[in-house]
């Protein structure tokens, strides 16, 4: 297996982008990534694109070919493949690109993610997202995504010490970071009060515990590490790529409050990267809901079960803390265009390791981790990156 490096990154701004179509979004992100790598499009050997549900959001399937075509590569006939794993689509697309390069099958590969979510009514987008759970045995009886994570929150709070205020502090911290990220959907700081006074969505989760509906796209380019310096002075090495699956329904899990797929993928990734937790300088976790960030920090092994609430209220996970979590603002403040999120996490970590994160910069960051979840934990992808 060959070592792999990220040689270029690009991302649109995230938000309700009424003026941009599905194809406008990925063309913009792809062009930014190529420009960053100072690479001509015709050098691309293959593409993988993460997308959850263009079929329901914009009534468009066959995304792989569409993207290659509008990237201006139709006459080059490169292989272009859509990857779908609900909200983990981006993380899995990135992993497929890494595997393609590591195996020696391809050299220059684009991993992209895109979702255009605001062309349907809010009720329809919520319903589409429910397809990430079990439609027949969760969605049919009235479960929603916030509802499923709310059941994790109630189980967690019944068993472990976590206050409603600590849960709110996850969102407060992520908005603080989002306010320092020029691509973030929400660039406003909020207070604990903002969260606690927002509308109840699914008890105990309120509006400000939930990631928003977002349009956006992100793209990164990977290449063999030995060739990386042809394209960039600051290649970022992919130290590990790991993926795990679990039951599609929340109710069938071994433990409602533990994402076993996160535990397994996290352990595998650390082992492959030959790292211990103390080596990780920062992590982008999948905070689709505030409780999800609490579970992720614990399930990745950064602290014991039941301790992440205190870690958050003590400021350990803040920008100036010992373990900065979601410096991009996370899904909560940066936004969550589901298929693009996994790639945006890579975009953020690469910026941080290059020292290009401006007001969010973690001084001396050398090793970073991304954690991308599909559904309530049925698919998880974990990647570790290093500045070499």
């Amino acid at each position, binding site marked *: 297996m060959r070592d792999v490096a990220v040689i270029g990154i690009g991302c649109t701004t995230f938000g309700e982008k009424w003026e941009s179509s599905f194809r406008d979004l990925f063309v913009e992100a792809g062009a930014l990534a190529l420009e960053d790598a100072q690479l001509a499009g015709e050098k691309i050997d293959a593409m993988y694109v993460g997308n959850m549900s263009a079929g329901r959001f914009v009534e468009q399937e066959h995304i792989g070919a569409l993207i290659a075509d509008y990237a201006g590569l139709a006459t080059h006939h490169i292989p272009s493949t859509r990857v779908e794993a609900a909200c983990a689509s981006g993380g899995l697309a990135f992993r497929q690109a890494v595997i393609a390069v590591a195996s020696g099958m391809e050299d220059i590969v684009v991993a992209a993610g895109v979702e255009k979510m605001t062309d349907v009514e809010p009720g329809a987008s919520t319903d589409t997202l429910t397809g990430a759970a079990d439609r027949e045995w969760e969605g049919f009886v009235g479960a*929603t995504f916030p509802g499923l994570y709310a059941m994790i929150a109630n189980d967690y709070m019944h068993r472990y010490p976590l206050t409603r205020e600590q849960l709110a502090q996850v969102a407060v911290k992520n908005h603080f970071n989002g306010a320092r990220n020029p691509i973030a959907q929400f660039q406003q700081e909020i207070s604990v009060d903002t969260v606690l006074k927002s509308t109840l969505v699914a008890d105990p989760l309120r509006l400000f515990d939930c990631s928003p509906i977002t349009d956006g796209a992100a793209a990164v380019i990977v290449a063999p590490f030995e060739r990386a310096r042809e394209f960039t002075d600051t290649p970022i090495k992919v130290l590990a790529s790991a993926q795990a699956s679990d039951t599609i329904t929340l109710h069938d899990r071994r433990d409602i409050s533990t994402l076993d797929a996160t535990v397994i993928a996290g352990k595998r990734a650390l082992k492959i990267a030959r790292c211990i937790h103390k080596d990780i300088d920062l992590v982008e976790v999948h905070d689709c809901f505030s409780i999800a960030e609490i579970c992720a920090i614990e399930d990745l092994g950064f602290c014991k079960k039941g301790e992440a609430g205190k870690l958050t209220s003590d400021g350990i996970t803040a920008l100036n803390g010992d373990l900065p979590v979601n410096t991009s603002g996370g899904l909560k403040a940066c936004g969550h265009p589901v298929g693009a999120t996994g790639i945006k996490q890579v975009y953020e970590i690469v910026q941080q390791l290059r020292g290009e994160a401006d007001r969010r910069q973690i001084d001396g960051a050398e090793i970073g981790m991304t954690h991308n979840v599909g559904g309530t934990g049925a698919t998880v992808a974990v990647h570790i990156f290093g500045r070499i």
Partner: protein
Amino acid sequence: MTVARFWRKIPQRYNMIGTKCQTCGRHFFPPRTFCPDCRRTGKIVDHKFRGMGTIVTYTVIHTANEQFEAFTPYVLAIVQLDEGPRMTTQIVCRPDEVKIGMRVKSAFRRIATDGESGIIHYGTKFVPINQT
């Protein structure tokens, strides 16, 4: 949901017909035709569940998907059936009544309507067992 798609699962949705592996005794609801423990040595047969269980965790849904908007707020829970499997279901009670550990039993109820003129989906909800 189309008529055929709904009709196909009526035994499970109305009468809680699941399956059981005769090799290891593990119960499955919703039904599985393949035992994850015994794999090819498993022998799967139908099993009618008693419909008794305990609430593992719950939430009160205030913002619902389109089909359920008329019913908010409603109680959603994960119930552990006495035979072992867990399922996601609505609980027929006031939001302030639901508790973790509460005993419940299954009941035949209307779940949702497919628009104003679409088919009515019936299925199983759970009601609290009055404990005296």
